């Protein structure tokens, strides 16, 4: 399920990388960047960023295209707004894509996103528009999966596709994974202890049961002997007495 979004992108990425390798002039590369950032199904840009061809753009008048690509790879709509002076104007397709990427970034930090925060980040004014955006753009395209809770005005994210990673994020991920491993190891240990406890308790219970039964048997035997010895001496009431104890 996570892999579907990635698989779809893999083809597009391969296609764009091939195109970029073929082109050599700066304006063509800039046009390619524009096309890549407006493509409705492409959310991964780090492959394109690392292509040597694109680094040629830096320093030329098309350097802003490179910055734009970097923004799409790592940044959100807020970053765009604060730097809008140095970046080229965005087409509506690109704006939409940037909004989708912003949602992904938000989903990285918390699992429950309040509507107010989303509305602020995505620059929409009413809940209806926000929900439409989330449903149509994010969930139907498969990059996000979750539940919309209108009563408590929040969006619970169950799954979000990954964005491109900056190198320091890699360290964070490794740390998280090792924590996860540590927790599951201790959990396994505890489960094993519980299993041992359950077995010991059932053993104790069985022993207790057996002891009890042994004592009952002993008591029965001693009563019978008593009864036999007494029957020779007295009759009547004692037999009634012992009969009642026979149960």
């Amino acid at each position, binding site marked *: 399920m996570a892999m579907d979004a990635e698989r779809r*992108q893999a083809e597009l990425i391969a296609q764009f990388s091939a195109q970029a390798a073929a082109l050599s002039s700066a304006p063509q590369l800039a046009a390619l960047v524009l096309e890549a950032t407006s493509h409705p199904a492409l959310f991964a840009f780090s492959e394109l960023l690392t292509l040597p061809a694109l680094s040629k753009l830096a320093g030329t008048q098309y350097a802003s295209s490179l910055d734009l690509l970097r923004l799409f790879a790592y940044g959100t709509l807020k970053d765009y707004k604060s730097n809008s002076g140095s970046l080229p104007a965005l087409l509506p397709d690109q704006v939409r894509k940037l909004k989708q990427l912003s949602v992904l970034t938000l989903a990285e930090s918390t699992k429950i996103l309040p509507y107010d925060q989303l509305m602020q980040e995505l620059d929409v004014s009413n809940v209806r528009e926000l929900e439409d955006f989330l449903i149509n753009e994010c969930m139907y395209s498969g990059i996000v999966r979750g539940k919309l809770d209108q009563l408590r005005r929040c969006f619970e994210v169950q799954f979000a596709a990954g964005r491109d990673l900056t190198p320091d994020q*890699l360290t964070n*991920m490794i740390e998280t994974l090792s924590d996860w491993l540590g927790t*599951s190891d201790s959990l396994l240990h505890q*489960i094993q202890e519980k299993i041992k406890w359950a077995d010991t308790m*059932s053993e104790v219970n069985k022993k207790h049961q057996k002891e009890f039964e042994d004592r009952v048997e002993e008591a029965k035997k001693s009563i019978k002997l008593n009864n036999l010895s007494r029957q020779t001496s007295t009759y009547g009431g004692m037999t009634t007495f012992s009969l009642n104890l026979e149960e």
Partner: protein
Amino acid sequence: MSAPSDAAAAVDTPAPTTAAAASSGGFTFKLHPLVIVNVSDHHTRVKAQAACSGDSSSSSSGAGAGQPPRVFGCVIGVQRGRTVEIFNSFELVLDPVSGTLDRAFLEKKQELYKKVFPDFYVLGWYSTGSDVHDTDMQIHKALMDVNESPVYLLLNPTINLSQKDLPLTIYESELHVIDGSPQLIFVRSNYTIETVEAERISVDHVAHLKPSDGGSAATQLAAHLTGIHSAIKMLNSRVRVIHQYLVAMQKGDIPVDNSLLRQVSSLVRRLPAMESQKFQDDFLMEYNDTLLMTYLAMFTNCSSTMNELVEKINTSYERPTARRGGRGAFM
């Protein structure tokens, strides 16, 4: 792939019919658990009845003195292209004198099944035994007019504890040239098990019966915990692999694969699986409910034990005077 019946007629002696060769026909067989249960049930019933009546059952062909009688039946299912899916089976009676199956009964059963399952065709037949018998080929050929290439399902009823696979083999018939003349022989085929949801539930249920028939609640708890333990262990090992991969990637041993990194990052984002306040509230409520019920059950248990004890004391210390309308000892 199907053998023409005139070639079959040319072979009148029951030649050795088994072959260890794998089938080259390219058919994929899918078997449902219902069929396996049916066949083993048929065999068990006949065996029990034979043992009960004390004489060797008449439906055996080639059964030795100490061997359980062989049972026969038909398997039905659907054939779509190269995939043969066997859904169900029913029993047939083998006439021991002529060695042929009861055709009238087969036709009648076929008709009945057709009404309920219009898609199912007779795909072949089954039998029990440890290996293919010489007479099986005759029966196989007899069925060829119903289905041009029937399958033969053989169930081995001897219980072999060391064997890991199912004691069930599927044979197809192929025309091979042996000693210069084409003959039909059985070749073994592979099969997979397909389950419908209902079958899965019942098989699961039967599989879990074993530990709980010995045991107290504690062994059930241990079995449940062991299941969880192995599941978490598997998850642990897989996460460990990913962790090592990332560390190697960071050190530079492995070239950076962005697409994988993105997938891992989305995986890591899924933790913690549950963190809202609502979950905590619901969880604690359910936990308290369970504790309360256990407490209540314990209470009931205790009070009933107490009641029994008091009754026993009353009865045992009942004085003879009480019979004359006097008061009871304790209550």
